[in-house]
């Protein structure tokens, strides 16, 4: 059970990471890059609950911070993803998970995380935050997240139910 859950999470992360960095990032879409990894964190939090979601968020955040082509402070994404997982896991009752709710929750969470990342980076003295673009970034990221949410949350939930029914929420 443990192993299967870990395998599912690793595969989820790899797919999300690959798709985001190698595909979505290179599409050149206007505004922000669709944050597929964050959406996968949300999906895991919805599938397994806040605790597992936070652990997954920590691992994903650390890896994203360490991965090539990101230059952030190590740990910031980990904290943000953990916060997102905590919030999402607590916010939705497992019994009323409808698609519109999931879409709204995901879009809102993604937007909030981008805003929080900007704030934290500014506080930490990172010079890369351009506040003039922030509104566009949040809006575009939220729109992309709204589109991607059902595509990620549903399969992850389905796999969790299918292979690890004992721990799935």
């Amino acid at each position, binding site marked *: 059970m443990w192993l299967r859950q870990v395998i599912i999470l690793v595969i989820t992360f*790899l797919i999300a*990471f*690959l*798709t985001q*960095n*190698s*595909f979505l990032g*290179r*599409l*050149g*879409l206007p505004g922000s890059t669709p944050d597929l990894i964050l959406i996968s964190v949300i999906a895991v939090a919805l599938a397994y609950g*806040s*605790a597992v979601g*936070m*652990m997954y968020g*920590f691992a994903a*955040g*650390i*890896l994203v*911070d*360490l*991965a*090539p*082509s990101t230059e952030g*402070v*190590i*740990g*910031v994404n*980990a*904290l943000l993803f*953990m916060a997102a997982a905590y919030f999402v896991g*607590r916010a939705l009752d497992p019994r009323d998970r409808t698609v519109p709710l999931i879409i709204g929750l995901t879009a809102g969470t993604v937007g909030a995380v981008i805003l929080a990342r900007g704030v934290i980076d500014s506080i*930490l003295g990172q010079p890369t935050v351009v506040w003039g673009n922030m509104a566009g970034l949040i809006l575009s990221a939220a729109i992309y997240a709204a589109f991607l949410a059902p595509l990620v949350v549903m399969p992850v939930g389905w796999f969790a139910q299918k292979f690890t029914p004992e721990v799935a929420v």
Partner: protein
Amino acid sequence: MFQRRARLIIAVLIVVSLTFAILDLRGGKGPFATFRSVIGTALGGVERGGATIFSPVLAIGDWWGTWGDQRDQINALQAENQALNQLVRRSAEDRARADALDGLLKVAGAGRYRITPAEVIAVGPEQEFSWTVTIDIGTQDGIERDMSVINADGLVGRVSAVHRTTSTVVLIVDPSMSVGARIAGSEEVGILSGTGDQNSLEFQMLDPLANVDVGTALVTFGSKNGKPYAPGIPIGEVTEVRGTAGQLTRVAAIKPFARMSALSIVGVVVRPPRTDPRDSVLPARPQLTTPDLSATPSPSATPNPTQSANPAATSLGIWSNPSPQPSPKAS
């Protein structure tokens, strides 16, 4: 809410995250340099694999992303292409006109004709059974009735009506037209009549015994004061002789040099040469029996009348080179 263990783990993870952030913020290479490079290498490899997988899909993405730009570019290039095409077409047309004018000037120079160039601006309807064209010069350019009209190839017709800025030209193929013509290289004369067929005029020789060969050229005989026809203008060549020598009517079919269906630049002979240029205007061609009438006359040549007219001719101003220029290849 959380189990004890989960709570503990999460607390540890938060602390670890914060520690990482603080350590990383201290700058320098820090304790993460090795860690970062190891993870970077591993995930970099994953990213490279992903790039290979997604490249075909991304090609579509690139197309999508640059679609608008490319459409604009295509529009701009199409417009530019159109403009350039137009330019090319126009320049080809200009060159053709320049060539036509050039040929006209050569003919005029060779025959000492003083011409006024004109452009055909309208062609009479064929269903009227008359072959006429309208040219863009008239009385204000000094055009009068019955002046000869030529182009670079030869005789075209004569002016039949003159208006202020335009004139009507009856082409030699018109069935009502008769032109006094002479066989080049001889004194044989006859009457050339239009037939309505632009490739075949009728030439009736006055001397039924005269010897005419296919391919021989015809020039105008000339009228008093050069009207209606100035002398020496090439008309066409014999393509067929009907009737044997001695028959009462002996008729030759003549193909005019000038293409009547494709007239554009023509010249109106406003002043004929003082002396008959004889055959010197004819283009040099091998089958022609005409002797070369250039500065070195062969023994059989008729005396070149243009040479005596040179001083007067140069004063007319349209040509500066006093000697006609038949090709040296002509026999």
